[in-house]
């Protein structure tokens, strides 16, 4: 069987970045370029800060939460990965090579779990699925401050919860919600071309086929 071809990426050395950081940027582009619809993608790099740098990918392709987790595993110095679906941008912030800044111990991220406003219409959701659908929505409402448009596409086995006009989302927060409702959330898609996020939620009467496992961040190796 033929292995999928790795896209050719040539990345000239950036003055503000160390070789290992440049290599990380190159690898990130390679990973995302291997996905369908990445031809119109553009890269922006901000390296002015002394301790950290930001990679901004404009017009990235449709990505799943697993694709995002691949990036998280590629570098232990990643501070945050943020998805801005409204402006079609993926922002990766990381510490620069040999930076003395101590990485803080990862703690469970916290956000308010707020009540669903009364003007939210969930009449299309079955009574037995209401509890987890409302829970997922409560968490998404808690991690954002601004109103967003939401829609539910119902099918025989699943609900597709589509979120549009949503503010910049921290991938770590999303991963936490997906982990919290891992028995129900089967897929999370960041659809940049359509400017929307889709969360596929299993109906309670549909048998479980697989449960997502939490991906732990790669630990820093010490060579002695």
């Amino acid at each position, binding site marked *: 069987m033929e292995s999928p071809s790795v896209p050719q990426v040539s990345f000239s050395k950036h003055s503000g970045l160390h070789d290992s950081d440049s290599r990380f940027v190159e690898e990130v582009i390679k990973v995302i370029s291997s996905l369908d619809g990445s031809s119109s993608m553009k890269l922006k790099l*901000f390296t002015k800060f002394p301790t950290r740098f930001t990679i901004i990918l404009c017009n990235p392709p449709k990505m799943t939460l697993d694709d995002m987790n691949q990036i998280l595993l590629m570098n232990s110095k990643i501070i945050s990965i943020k998805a801005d679906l409204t402006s079609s941008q993926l922002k990766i912030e990381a510490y620069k090579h040999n930076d003395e800044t101590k990485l803080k111990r990862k703690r469970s991220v916290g956000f308010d779990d*707020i009540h669903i406003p009364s003007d939210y*219409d969930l009449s*299309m959701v079955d009574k037995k699925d209401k509890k987890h659908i409302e829970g997922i929505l409560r968490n998404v409402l808690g991690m*954002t*401050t601004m109103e967003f448009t*939401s*829609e539910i596409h119902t099918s025989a086995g699943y609900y597709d919860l589509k979120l549009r*006009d949503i503010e910049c989302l921290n991938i770590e927060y999303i991963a936490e919600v997906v982990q919290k409702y891992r028995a129900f959330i089967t897929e999370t898609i960041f659809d940049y071309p359509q400017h929307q996020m889709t969360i596929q939620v299993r109906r309670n009467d549909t048998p479980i086929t697989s449960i997502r496992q939490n991906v732990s961040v790669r630990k820093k190796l010490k060579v002695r």
Partner: protein
Amino acid sequence: MSRSVFNRNRTRSGVADKIISELNDVDNEDMEVEFKGYMHGGKGFALEILNLESISERTLQLWKRVIEGKGLNPCIETDMMSGKVNIKCVENVRQSRKPFMKTLMYLSLTLTFIYILWNRHQSLK
């Protein structure tokens, strides 16, 4: 079958319109003020100022005063990397009088107990 759960409100309020027209800066003639939307639960709204080349503390203070003048609380975040400023205009929450009432109740109870103890001590003499 697809059905809407909630549709984001896109119509600008009169207060937002007034603030947008009053926000300006002499150093940034090309700047644009956009209405980003409302916050959950009608707590306020957010504005985004684009095409900023530089920003001074004086301008920020001026913008704060414009927003405070409309009875709102400004929360300004500058992102000069992208040349933009995000402003959240939050409605002032009226402080409840309950905490004050509770303090008054505990204070009066403590004073009453002190008086009872003092009274007993006096009668024993």
